[in-house]
């Protein structure tokens, strides 16, 4: 099993959710986060006072998938979240040792 953590532009969330549902994934966790990468921040001006805003609003999606599905899921996210502009985000894939569904006690792939 793999944990896919994707940081995307907020307005791309719905497209990514749809793409992951289309390949058969049944759940995900979404968090509103702030951060920056090469995009750095942007400048805001309030009555002439300029503020360099370094942390931009992003969406973090966390989804755990069976190892066999990893590539397909990553590909789906990339396809849906890509605008080609700076600031599209990043995807991290990491191993997951164990999964447990609390209600039934099912574990690992059966619990996904």
């Amino acid at each position, binding site marked *: 099993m793999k944990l896919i953590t994707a940081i995307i532009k907020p307005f791309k969330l719905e497209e990514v959710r749809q793409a992951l549902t289309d390949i058969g994934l049944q759940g995900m966790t979404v968090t509103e986060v702030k951060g920056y990468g090469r995009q750095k921040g942007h400048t*805001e*001006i*309030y*009555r*002439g*006072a300029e*503020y360099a*805003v370094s942390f931009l609003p992003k969406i973090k999606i966390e989804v755990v998938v069976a190892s066999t599905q990893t590539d397909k899921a990553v590909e789906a996210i990339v396809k849906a979240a890509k605008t080609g502009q700076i600031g599209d985000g990043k995807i991290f894939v990491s191993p997951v040792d164990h999964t447990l569904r609390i209600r039934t006690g099912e574990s690992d792939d059966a619990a996904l």
Partner: protein
Amino acid sequence: MKLSSTMRSAGVLGIAAALACLAGTAYAAGDLTLVDAAGNQYSGFKGDVTWMMTATVLVLLMTAPGLALFYGGLVRTKNMLSIMMQVYASMCMVMILWVLYGYSMTFTNGGALNDYIGGFSKVLLAGVTPSSPVATFSNGVYLPEMVYIVFQMTFAAITPALIVGGFAERAKFSAVMLFIALWVTCIYFPIAHMVWYWGGPDAWAAAAKALAEAGGPDNAEAKAAFDLAMLDSGKVFQWGALDFAGGTVVHINAGIAGLVGALLIGKRVGFGREQMPPHSLTMTMIGAALLWVGWFGFNVGSNLEANGTAVLAMVNTFVATAAAGLAWMLIEWVVKGKPSALGLASGVVAGLVAVTPACGFSGPMGAVILGIVAGIVCFVFATGVKNALGFDDSLDVFSVHCIGGIIGALGTGLLVNPDWGGAGIPDYVSKPGELIVAPYDMMFQLTAQGKAVLMTLLWSGIGSAILFKLVDIIVGLRPVTDKEREGLDITDHGERAYNY
């Protein structure tokens, strides 16, 4: 001729449509009869009373939701309740002070000190009944005094609430409340008295008529009685300065006090190093919109009657404001690259401030020009001059209210000119009982306006400095640094604005 110079200095707050009134003392009967303490009857109109009650509630709308939201959106989350409470609680307090002694100190004759302050004859609203009359700007037309009391109460309540924007996010609640109680007493009531207190059209007509019947200014005794009647007014009023709805009394007055507060209390902790962007421009936009709606009560209500001049004030309050909002937005678009929402809202408020003294005197095209000038000059002050000088007038009370008020006060002196489409300066004494337009003299009028501005700047500037020092000694102006960092919502009020 001495009489004419007195007439010219007879600046008043509004030209009322006195078309219905006849020369002499016979006036068109109203549908409302008022009776003073001596049993004399006065005529009024229910339509005027209806409008004044509505206008009073509209001015309340400016303060509690309007100003509180406008300011609230501009501070950081941790100080949202603090700024709203400073506006809301001070408003409540001033309302009580107003009926205790404020109205009396503002709108009665102060005897030997009458040039500067009223007296105590109506403390606790002594002698005021539902049928007590008060003069309007038309001969023979009266309002119930009680509606005038509450209308003017809302003015006294909003003015100190404007000041707190100058030192938002860093003044203790107790200090703000004590300062405002002292400030309205020592500064607002006297300035309002100086600018707005006078005997009324019929008192002036009666004095002029008595003088004419006694043989004119050559009769020394009659002349002395006439002069005494003219002197039953405040100092700035005697100078002939025009202020329709409070450019000096409200905006310059509060604006300079806000600046003095910003300088004496000092900058916010972290000012210039930490980011302090507005926490909700949505609320600021809502607040600015409510201010504009409420401002019709403020400006149009200041006419005291629902007539043609009232409608002129309404038109001007629309167009000057729209012009100022656009002017600020456009110059910002050119200079800073983007037309911002806060810029538009700031321009709208600057336009409202500038048209306040002018709204019943200027013509509509004059008001548009006034709005454009106010939008541009206030933009330069708020975005350029303030940053260059480095003081922390947090919510731009000085740049918008004081500068906008000065533009409006001086602009009124120009735009009242009938040759430029203005309504002209009213003259109640040349033909007693009849309202005519006095000859316009630009130098005289600009001098009078300038003196009114200077008087307000000095009285409020110096007076506020003394009061801030006094409050600092008694309760201390600022919270300790840690409390300021934590936010005044928690440290002053024990609450958070947002729990989610």
